[in-house]
């Protein structure tokens, strides 16, 4: 597993995760990016919401 500095935890798939409410979710991708910033709108999977945002 790799804990990226800027964002998700990278785990080799397939992955089965139990969420804190007991729900079990799975992903059979070759590698899975698990959200650690809690901002993902596809939680527990990373959706790049950790990225820095700037005013144009």
């Amino acid at each position, binding site marked *: 597993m790799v804990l990226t500095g800027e964002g998700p935890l*990278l785990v080799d798939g397939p992955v089965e995760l139990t969420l804190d409410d007991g729900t079990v979710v799975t992903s059979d991708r070759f*590698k899975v990016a698990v959200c650690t910033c809690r901002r993902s*709108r596809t939680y527990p999977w*990373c959706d790049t919401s950790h990225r820095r*945002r700037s005013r*144009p």
Partner: protein
Amino acid sequence: MTSAPATTVPDALSAPLPDGRGELSAGLRAALLAPPGAPVPDPAAAAGADPLGDDLQLSLYLAYELHYRGFTGVDPAWEWDPGLLRLRAALERRFLDALREGTAGHPDLDAVLEGILVEPVSGTGVSYHLSDEGTLEQMREYAAHRSLYHLKEADPHVWVIPRLRGRAKAAFVAVEYDEFGGGRAERVHAELFAALMRDLRLDDSYGRYADAASAEMLCTVNLMSLFGLHRALRGALVGHFAAVETTSSPGSRRLARAMRRLEAGPAAEHFYAEHITADAVHEQVVRREVIGGLLDDEPSLARDMAFGVAATGWVEDRFGVQLMSAWQAGRSSLRVPLDRAPAGG
């Protein structure tokens, strides 16, 4: 030169041959309907054509598409016809010069990658427009345009594989495997896009909307073929791949939202929803392993990788401007509006 046809079996997967858009492309189109070896337009004529215009970009598209699924009624042996390849080389030089000029002064690799990792707080552009206020008809136009690539999604990138080794190769192939459905036909991204097209009541046959696509759209597809087919441009191809995988996730979230808002259908929404999480992973793998691995093997390619990232942004921005200016003027962004297209639609 004459050569025996490579096969007498009709190409079941081939695309309809697009109409010409000027002297070069009409001349090349006519040649393709003749046996290989027939005269093609003089490569010197490429000098007079707009490198980013319809005529030159369609000519390049015709030449490149022979390497993918070919055209109905066109002998597959044209793919390696020396006369056609000479013409293609002249067209490519014009295109590549225009790309270098358009991205002149681009930052170095670290800076261009940093640039595409920052999300604007209030962005503008096609995906924002479609997410918030675009019409279903505009979404259908967008999908018809993009079908020129998404129906062969990840194909142009395959050509770089023999030019990589070790870490970069393993990681690149892993991402491509995901793009090709991880061994499951129904998950191949090109198949997911075909299902999206059916939800949008579009014809999902390969190459069906080539006549309708703008020169700006052709540029985005030709860019990938150009980078993919030349080993000398392998760094640029990897840069292109990194740019697409990095910018796709947030853009896909907006397009999935657009599909939901427009009630386009489950397959239409799924294509983009799948890309939100898939590309969040791919971005990490491409930046760490593919770019990292290739930099370890060939540090001198950093410049080309940066060029690939910059050129991708440049052609995508031009395509976005073309779409938005057509829509803001109340026009169709397609050369052949969908309601006037001969079939499907």
